[in-house]
């Protein structure tokens, strides 16, 4: 998947500009950035919900913007929503089955096969215990799981996950990560938006950092997090300046020590 020169304007505001990066097959791309940096907007562009003002997202030789919203999943791209959207009156299992019926392999699946697939996925994401409850009755963490199950029901090659771990406790985050690793091992490319730095570092092969709608860094998790621009974006320029000042003071002190070692005066 190639994301090139994406710009997205809402009225007078550029939510995204000149964002480009490639997503390798089978990789896990972590998309991070402070609040309002354009992560969800980018997810919406990649999944075809928004048509970008400039640039394009190409996947499997097609421009996503040219594909109608309901056909994006047939290309092999699935996504979850940060603000969950279950079909409230349907049961949890039915919610997932709808994905299995109309997703990528839906045309080949009978109603029965779709329900069986839904049941499998519910067991994988840990929702089998509430399979027959109306989706409206699910707790928030369960709704997040349901989003993942619905997206997986589309049999995607690329899965976009928008803050599926928000609101989960430490154990649940560990379970979710294990689930995502498992999905990735089956050959599904993941693009993950998450605030939880620990989680994203542990799962991503590449991290892309957005700030104010621009890409400010890209690379392996450890090097990206050490980058001064990223630290500045997260902790503010004053913090960075203070660090620099401290470093300078430290350097001056070291210099002073070198010229006049304390032992010499003694």
């Amino acid at each position, binding site marked *: 998947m190639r994301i090139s020169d994406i710009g997205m304007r809402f009225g007078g505001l550029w939510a995204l500009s000149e964002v480009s990066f490639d997503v390798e097959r089978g990789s896990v791309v972590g998309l991070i950035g402070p609040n309002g940096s354009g992560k969800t907007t980018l997810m919406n562009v990649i*999944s075809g*919900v928004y048509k970008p003002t400039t640039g394009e997202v190409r996947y499997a030789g097609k421009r996503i913007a040219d594909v*109608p*919203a*309901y*056909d*994006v*999943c*047939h290309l092999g791209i*699935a*996504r979850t*929503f940060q603000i969950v*959207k*279950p*079909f*409230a*009156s*349907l*049961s949890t*299992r*039915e919610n997932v*089955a*709808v*994905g299995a*019926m*109309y*997703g*990528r392999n*839906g045309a080949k699946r009978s*109603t*029965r096969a*779709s*329900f*069986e697939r*839904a*049941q499998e996925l519910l067991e994988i994401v840990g929702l089998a215990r509430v*399979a*027959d409850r109306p989706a409206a009755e699910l707790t928030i963490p369960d709704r997040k799981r349901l989003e993942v199950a*619905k997206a997986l*029901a*589309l049999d995607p090659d690329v899965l976009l996950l928008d803050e599926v771990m928000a609101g989960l406790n430490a154990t649940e985050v560990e379970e979710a990560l294990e689930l995502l690793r498992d999905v990735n091992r089956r050959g599904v490319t993941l693009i993950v938006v998450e605030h939880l730095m620990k989680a994203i570092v542990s799962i991503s092969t590449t991290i892309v950092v957005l700030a104010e709608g621009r890409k400010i860094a890209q690379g392996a998790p450890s090097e990206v997090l050490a980058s001064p621009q990223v630290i500045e974006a997260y902790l503010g320029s004053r913090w960075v300046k203070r660090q620099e000042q401290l470093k300078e003071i430290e350097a001056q002190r070291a210099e002073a020590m070198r010229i006049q070692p304390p032992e010499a005066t003694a």
Partner: protein
Amino acid sequence: MSTALRKIGLGGITGNRTALFISLGLMVLLLLVPTVLPGYQTLFRTILCFVALAYGWNIIGGYTGYVSFGNMVFFGLGTYCAALLSARGIDNLFADVGLAVVVNAAFAAVVGFPVLRLKGHYFGIATLGTALAVTDIVGNLDIFGGTGGLKVTQVDEAHFAIYYYAAWLVAAGAIAVTFLVARSKLGYAFVAIRENEDAAAVLGISATKYKIIAWAISAAIAGAAGAVYARGNGFVDPSIAFAEDFNVYPIVMTILGGTGTVAGPFVGALILSGVNETLGHTFLKLHSLFFGAVIVLVVLLLPRGLVWLIGLRGGVRTWIKSLQAYKA
């Protein structure tokens, strides 16, 4: 259906089972009307037409969630299909119903392209507008007999029961179609659109396509009801074909019985027709007041209809609790 299948949730979105069985039982009993209660044949034939109309409305308004106020137009066109065939000397119920189904499905698909882009109130108003426009067009064209109407050839009185059975078949067909839709992938596409069109699109459902399918099915059922009604009535003019009753009653019936269920429209149609008939004789015009009261009470106390009430376990307390949940 095996219990194993039910365990994995393959029951579909048919609604309460008990209500469905009761409805099917009553439907079979209705077959006896011409032999047991010949005097009430006309009344029950009309009721069966309302049953079919309610089922037609339920597909678009109940399952797909697009509240149409224009389904009478399909009923009306159905009646004229029969009248026009009759005017050309073709007197065959199968031809009437066949033509009505084809014409209405096609008409709904064509009108649906622009109209189904609208949502909520706008869709409702557009359907009502379409219905009023078609009423005026039909009333002013000579081929439709203008406001003077058209005569529909009938069989002789001794064989009148045939119209009753035709209406029964159309109603039964409407129930069967609804049941099949609710058990199939199609039904789930409709409900997904009702619950959240954007989320449905993400799962690969083309909202436009399935809304048009839903409306075409809805229109075909209403048209078939119109065709047999016209034959039974023997005469068609705009005030009969496009009567407001055929528009409003099916909606109220479906809401009373339970939208988006297989038994709901039948339960609602039977109860309201019965009450309407009794009150209509006693109070004449006042019965429309009763309809208004029913709408208000149902919306307030039974937002999901009688069928849902039958399936409710836990008595009054659960009912009040779920009402609060519904309003929240």
